[in-house]
């Protein structure tokens, strides 16, 4: 079977898998952004118990393996009465894990805004919340977008692990095709190419576009 014949035969399967991977990536990203904002701000809190929640969360999710976390969510939580479907468990693990990395990006972005901006806002009588919302965060957002672009590519690649709890994503489909055809190079080669296309064809230009749009809106640079 030539590669073209292979592609022709298995394209629908690959496509289905890619759609699941995109769904996992999208939902994982949404969750990661929410978690990153919450935990990033908690870690910056001046109230020590709140800060510790942020620190502990980030340490646990960054310091242990994503695969083990996913197995916990899928296989161990049911023992405590929390049963999740494999699809939900998949993006939950990915989002919670990458969110911990994102939290550090949020913190770094906010802390990269010069002290003088805080002082100017304070001197104008702004409440700390207003100051964050109107002055600091818009500038921080622009600073943190490029590293977020990297993180989202990491997230996309991390979703390959959900195949291990039988979510029928691109990786899972490739493995199945490999098992039924023994055409390993073709099966996993095609998977590589599709992952690359999603990363470089969708995520990177998407983030760059967002950056340009925001930079224009904030009119910096």
């Amino acid at each position, binding site marked *: 079977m030539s590669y073209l014949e292979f592609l022709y035969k298995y394209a629908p399967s690959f496509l289905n898998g890619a759609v699941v991977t995109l769904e996992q990536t999208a939902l994982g990203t949404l969750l990661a952004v929410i978690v990153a904002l919450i935990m990033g701000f908690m870690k910056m809190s001046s109230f020590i118990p709140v800060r510790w929640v942020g620190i502990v969360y980030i340490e646990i999710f960054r310091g242990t393996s994503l695969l083990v976390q996913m197995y916990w969510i899928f296989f161990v939580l049911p023992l405590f009465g929390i049963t999740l479907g494999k699809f939900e468990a998949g993006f939950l693990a990915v989002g919670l894990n990458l969110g911990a990395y994102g939290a550090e990006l949020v913190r770094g972005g906010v802390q990269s805004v010069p002290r003088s901006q805080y002082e100017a806002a304070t001197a104008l009588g702004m*409440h700390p919340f*207003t100051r964050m919302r*109107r002055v600091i965060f818009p500038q921080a957002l622009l600073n943190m977008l490029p590293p977020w672009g990297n993180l989202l590519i990491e997230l996309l690649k991390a979703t390959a692990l959900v195949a291990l709890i039988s979510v029928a994503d691109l990786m899972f489909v490739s493995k199945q095709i490999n098992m039924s055809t023994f055409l390993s190079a073709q099966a996993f080669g095609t998977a590589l190419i599709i992952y690359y296309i999603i990363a470089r064809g969708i995520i990177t230009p998407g983030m760059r576009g967002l950056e340009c749009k925001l930079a224009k809106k904030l009119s910096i640079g």
Partner: protein
Amino acid sequence: MSNESFPLKLEGGDVPMVRFDRVTKQYGDLTVLDSLDLDVKANEMVAIIGPSGSGKTTVLRMLMGLELIDEGVIYVDGQPMTHMEKNGRLVRAGQKYLRRMRSSIGMVFQQFNLFPHMTALQNCMEAPVQVLGLSRKEARERSLELLKLVGLDDKMDQYPARLSGGQQQRVAIARALAMRPKIMLFDEVTSALDPEIVGEVTQVIRKLHDEHSLTMLMVTHQMGFARDISDRVCFFYEGKIAEQGSPEQLFDNPRNERTAMFLSAVLEAD
């Protein structure tokens, strides 16, 4: 600290707009301000000069509430600013109280510190809308008027990155004025500017001084300007006011040896 010897508020006929009452500030072992006493009358223009590290800028930053003081009390318009009354005693001011007291003070910084993601007009409108709760229309009118005062109404839609240093500093002055402060603090506002554009900023300050009733404290290295415009000059040395007086007296007949040495050094450099 024992606050027994500090009044809860200043009363009587001649309440100063600003009073530093035995204010001390330390960074670790370094004493930046050493039991400073300073009164500024309403509508008075006080220039603060002195060698770097003498505590000049710290005076303004503490008055703006950007830095905590270690001892003493600062009063603004008769009310304690760094402290508030609680059960007949002075305790350290809470954030909310401090924000309210800050509203009578505006500050202009050496590095302008405009918000880079807002136009000149938005920079001016932001605090009146967010802090004072003005409608956008009112804030816009007020801001436009002030941008006109500093001669930049034609640049209102420009972002700071597109403005020169002198223009940015004038926007910063308008932004501070938009909060209608009673006291304006100028912290070396011309030090980051090229010599040829210093004049456009000093002109604005002069105009404010001549046409508006504002109490002003100005830290500056420009002796000519300080002499020209101020009612009183304070020479800071090692955290204390080593000498103060009218510009004529201080510049022409300094009594303190330190003042004389400082003046001859900076005037020579000019």
